[in-house]
């Protein structure tokens, strides 16, 4: 029996890697993939706690998270396509239109 803390360590590690990807990478596609990684880490924690308490609510919530992640990926990639049409590039540092 694997202790639940080890699943939480795995979730923590995946979340950390995803957060590092969001903060450090400049390619907007890889930033979106890192967001998916972070959502996956949250799902692992949800399912681990669900197992810990023998309660299926956590798994239902994880399924909803997957649906939200799918919607987020669809809209995010549509925005990427739209931005790429307008200014030909996926470098996230070029996108400062709303800042200045």
């Amino acid at each position, binding site marked *: 029996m694997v202790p639940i803390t080890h699943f939480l360590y795995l979730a923590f590690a995946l979340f950390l890697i995803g957060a590092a990807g969001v903060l450090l990478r400049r390619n907007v596609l*890889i930033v979106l993939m890192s967001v998916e990684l972070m959502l996956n880490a949250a799902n692992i924690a949800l399912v681990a706690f669900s197992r810990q308490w023998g309660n299926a609510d956590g798994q*239902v919530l994880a399924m*909803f998270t997957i*649906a939200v992640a*799918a919607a987020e990926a669809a809209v995010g990639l549509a925005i*990427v*396509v739209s931005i790429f049409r307008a200014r030909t590039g996926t470098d996230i540092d070029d996108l400062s239109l709303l800042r200045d």
Partner: protein
Amino acid sequence: MSGEELIFYLFAAIAVVSALATVSRRNPVVAAVWLVVTFFAVAVCYLLLSATFLAAIQILVYAGAMMVLFVFVIMVLDVDERGREEHRRPTRIARVGYYGSLLLAGGFIAWVLLGTLARQYLNPGADLSKTPDFGTANAIGREIFTDYLFAFEAISLLLLAAVIGAVVVARNRRDREKDSLQTGMSHAARHAAGVAELPPVPGDIAPPGPTPVTDFGAPSATGHDGGT
């Protein structure tokens, strides 16, 4: 160390290593295929937590639908010449690790899912975890369609909105302009939709009257050839 622990630490290591590979690759296609390995390893972790239905959903939605979406967008964008050498020459270790971990995870998932199904139908009393059907599609479906019905409907609405939003955002400006003209939108509505210039201000229009005539002077013998 029991078999379960061995499997957990093996797939946790695979998940962490492939997640690191995902965020560190230059070529987004290479990052996407490493992300698939991460998703498979996470699905194995769901199985170890006896969430068999969620493991199947993870493979279907993440490794199936979402990865195809990512790869299609990368193909459409045709970006990143920089990471091309990665694409051309994956090292032997990377290839062995990639296909090996995918095969391992896929085989394990198939084994556990088939085993779960067999145990459920051949021996209904098999104790998988605290309750017999914990984590199966049966239990999750019962939860979704009773306690979480409203949230489920809200999620379906969210998915619909995301589909419409993605289509609207990803269309190019010329198509939107054409559609707005064909459906007979007013100028103000077209401006609100971002396909027309500023709406005409009523006071700004020139008052009706005689059209101003420009006086070009007398015709010149050298300035104009008269169209012979």
